[in-house]
């Protein structure tokens, strides 16, 4: 693949976990790529992690198993990890976690090479994301709006249907983009074979495969490779969005596996750990991935990121979801309790949030009543959850009439608003009208977050149509 430039060194002074230590080096740069040649002649890729006068520490993406201390050779390539980007050569293709073709096709040869680490976007050059994306899912469109250029992760747990949900988002948002150029960049990190296959089939069925590029590091692929996969994917996404003016949806799954690979390298290197053994720079490292989303003033395209992560033990305070939530513009939280009740998508809207919602909705974008209605529904549902707790203590019979309304609201909200079919695609107006219908379970004087005019205009009409 790369040109054979640079110097070659024989022998490793130390091999520790995914790291090798090479002595006697000269003229090697920090972050440079290396090729490690085993005694059998197999070539593995690596990257310089730290460097001093004559010692380089190199992480080997494909692992160090089988490396001989005395007979391995290391070649330094004199450049950082780069990837060739060209829309024609990557769309519709499948690559491995290091960007090598898995579909029998040739590796990308035209196009320019890019450092996969990317460059920070000048905040002044960013365009604030405000374009509403209709996902057709009420819990998202109504209450946690996704906008173009946003990074909105899905916080999931093992066994929860995050794959189905993100596939549904891809399927349904795609429909709206007919007029414009769109692409889906899919990066799998330590994902199960069946999950990757599920996505592939789904892209195929919905006819979007020719607009998809997949980078697959599967569960049985080398773990350190996962540090590279999202960066290659985002480098390709940046090219498509900022040079080819496409609207790109990037799916990263599963960020938990990525973070574990990072921890593995950090502990092997003997770094000072912070929480749960993760390195102190986990925040900065995650930011270097998540911040590669958005829009810039010099291009028409956009990068919207949906990162999926499974919360270890469903714990939202675990460092991975915690730091992710601090970087991303909100989160969609899946809930085991709802899942067990048979509700799909099991989105718990209370801890879910979209930070870019307020500017992406309202008159001219969705509808004038959207903000207030969403706030009202949130308040009612939060109160309904409190009433449910109370009911579980004192029993439903002892509740006041008003409290019983809350129970009814909670049931209908979860059973009709949240719950929908994996192929059910609701328009934003259907979602909002449904929200009004549920809100009007209460007398209008209890709806303090919406304006009386809004009740007049939207609340009453729904009731009326219901009566008919």
């Amino acid at each position, binding site marked *: 693949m790369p040109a054979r430039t640079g110097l070659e060194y024989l022998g490793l002074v130390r091999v520790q976990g995914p790291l090798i230590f090479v002595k006697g080096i000269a003229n090697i740069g920090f972050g440079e790529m290396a090729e490690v040649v085993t005694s059998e002649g197999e070539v593995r890729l690596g990257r310089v992690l730290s460097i001093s006068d004559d010692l380089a520490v190199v992480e080997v993406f494909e692992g160090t198993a089988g490396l001989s201390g005395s007979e391995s050779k290391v070649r330094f390539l004199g450049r950082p990890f780069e990837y060739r980007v060209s829309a024609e050569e990557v769309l519709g293709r499948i690559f491995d976690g290091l960007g090598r073709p898995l579909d029998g096709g040739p590796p990308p040869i035209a196009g320019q090479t890019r450092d996969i680490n990317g460059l920070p976007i000048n905040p002044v*050059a960013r365009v604030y994301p405000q374009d509403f994306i209709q996902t057709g899912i009420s819990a998202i469109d109504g209450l946690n709006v996704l906008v173009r250029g946003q990074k909105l992760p899905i916080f999931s747990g093992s066994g929860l249907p995050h794959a189905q949900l993100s596939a549904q988002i891809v399927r349904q948002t795609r429909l709206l983009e007919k007029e414009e150029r769109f692409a889906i960049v899919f990066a799998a990190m330590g994902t199960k074979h069946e999950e990757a296959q599920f996505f592939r089939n789904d892209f195929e069925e919905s006819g979007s495969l020719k607009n998809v590029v997949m980078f697959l590091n599967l569960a049985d692929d080398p773990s350190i490779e996962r540090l590279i996969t999202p960066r290659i994917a985002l480098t390709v996404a940046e090219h498509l969005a900022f040079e080819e003016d496409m609207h790109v949806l990037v799916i990263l799954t599963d960020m938990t596996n990525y973070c574990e690979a990072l921890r593995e390298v950090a502990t092997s290197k003997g770094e000072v750990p912070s929480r749960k053994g993760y390195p*102190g720079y986990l925040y900065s490292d995650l930011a270097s991935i998540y911040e590669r989303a958005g829009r810039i003033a010099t291009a028409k395209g956009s990068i919207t990121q949906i990162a999926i992560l499974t919360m270890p033990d469903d714990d939202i305070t675990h460092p991975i979801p915690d730091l992710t939530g601090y970087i991303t513009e909100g989160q969609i939280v899946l809930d085991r309790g709802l899942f067990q009740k048979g509700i799909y998508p099991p989105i718990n809207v209370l801890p879910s949030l979209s930070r870019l919602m307020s500017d992406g909705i309202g008159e001219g974008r969705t509808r004038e009543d959207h903000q207030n209605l969403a706030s009202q529904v949130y308040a009612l549902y939060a109160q309904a959850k409190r009433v449910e707790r109370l009911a579980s203590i004192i029993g439903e019979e002892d509740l006041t009439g008003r*409290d019983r309304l809350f129970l009814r609201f909670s049931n209908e909200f979860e059973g009709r608003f949240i719950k929908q079919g994996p192929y059910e695609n609701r328009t934003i107006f259907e979602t909002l009208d449904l929200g009004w219908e549920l809100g009007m379970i209460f007398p209008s004087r209890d709806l303090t977050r919406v304006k009386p005019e809004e009740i007049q205009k939207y609340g009453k009409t729904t009731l009326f149509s219901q009566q008919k």
Partner: protein
Amino acid sequence: MSKTRKAIINEINGPVIKVRQAYGFSMNEMVVIGEEKLLGEVIELYGDQATIQVYEDTTGLKPGTSVHGQGLPLFTELGPGIVGHVFDGIQRPLSVMYQDSGPFIRRGKAGEALNRDKAWAFKPKTGSGERVSPGQVIGDVEETDRVVHRIMVPPNLSGRLLEIAPEGPYTIEEKIALLEDEKGETQEIKLYQKWPVRRIRPYQKRILPSEPLFTGQRVIDFFFPLAKGGTAAIPGGFGTGKTITQHQLSKWVDADIIVYIGCGERGNEMAGVLMDFPKLLDPRTGRPLIERTIFIANTSDMPVAAREASIYTGITIAEYYRDMGYHVALMADSTSRWAEALREIAGRMEEMPAEEGFPAYLASRLAEFYERAGAVITGGGETGSVSVIGAVSPPGSDFSEPVTQHTKRYVSTFWALDKELASARYFPAINYLDSYSGYVESVALWWKKKADFDWTDLRSQALAILKEDAKLMNIVKLIGEDALPGDQKVIFHGARLIKEDFLQQSAFDSVDTYSPAGKQVLMLRIILRFIERMKETVAAHRIPVYRIMEVPVLEEMERMKYTYKGDDLKPFKDILKRLEEEFDDLLKREA
């Protein structure tokens, strides 16, 4: 300065590099690395070796590369051309960088902080021959339509003015005055000066903060006020509204200058601020808010060492405007990201960690930062202040973590954001039980003068009801509201009125987003009066609470915050009158 000294890199570990032959390097000295001229700062010295934190990406850097000492500590350029502009953590002008090198930040592309070509209209305010002291104002420049930039004698200089330039346009590199210092040497004064970021700028003396930093946010102004020159922290997990609160404050506080530091935060959020501010108008002057705001933006994907420097750059600029006799409010979002940058660099230096991997000097660094806030008499004899509001992002919303705990030791006002309130979309999600303010007594007098009503009294009445309600909530959770006796129901419903009709405030509603002082006082008076009448009605006339909660004025009370701006207080007085009438009616009917 002295001729540049050269050292050689012998180790690279992310943003931290080690050099040898560092003869004559000093602590915190600025260095320039290699041909790309990357910027760095000396953070450790031992023998002929030095450790340097690099403000830019170090990928590709090689051992053996030379590093040049600059003989100066990391400094800011202070002069006209700061207000309304956006800088990164080491004061590189981001708009200029965008024009010069495109939408991505490439390394080694340092532009000068202040525009060298722009001419400013200078008006002298002293005559030649006069004796001047450090910090004394010698002339003015109109920096924006609303900020007059005072040109001051630099802090370490005093003497006799030999010459001062006549009124006219000058660039910042042109000399505008000549001064003979105490040693008899001649010194040039320009429109700008340099100051090291890690050193506090001198002043004559500190004074106690006594005036509130009015924010238009009811829960803050009324319950947990901040004073001009005071310190406050806003801790809260993600999604609790830290950033929105910071944005609200930077929009509405009655300071002359706002310094907003986006420290390790989201790029899109910064883009939102940069889009909003030129459009928003200051409620007091009617001028665009951008004309009094300075942005430091070091988003989370920008280099981590520059993030560490960003809060110092910000506070140095804040102090500089304070020295002109302005009230400056500084928002840092988020100090946790700054602390993490500190941790990351300490980790790379292989320092022994204290709590949760943070270095042992975390507390003293936080103290140094917050102590740079204060109200002072400036060198020029005026009153100025720097108020500091730091957001804290505790991991997992756990306030017992080191950054929150150490911050608590050094700030006087604490606005605790609450996850549960936030998930019910109850904003601002400031928990009224866990929050506190050390300035309640010092600002009481201001309220008395301003609003002609006993603010302290209203405040403590409302807080007492909220505290009692919190106790009742525990019971209600177990047995339901219906089981409460009448007088407790009054507290329960009354507290709900305070929470929903007063404390809750929408940042997105054009009327509710800012509440003037008079509106705040009347709103709370109305609610407290309602509770009072409810109490007597229940106690003396045995009318059940649910009957009272049907009086029509309640609906008006619910909507008053959205309906009336508060420039005119008559509608509120009308509500008060209606309230009394409706209670009287109720009593008549029920009797």
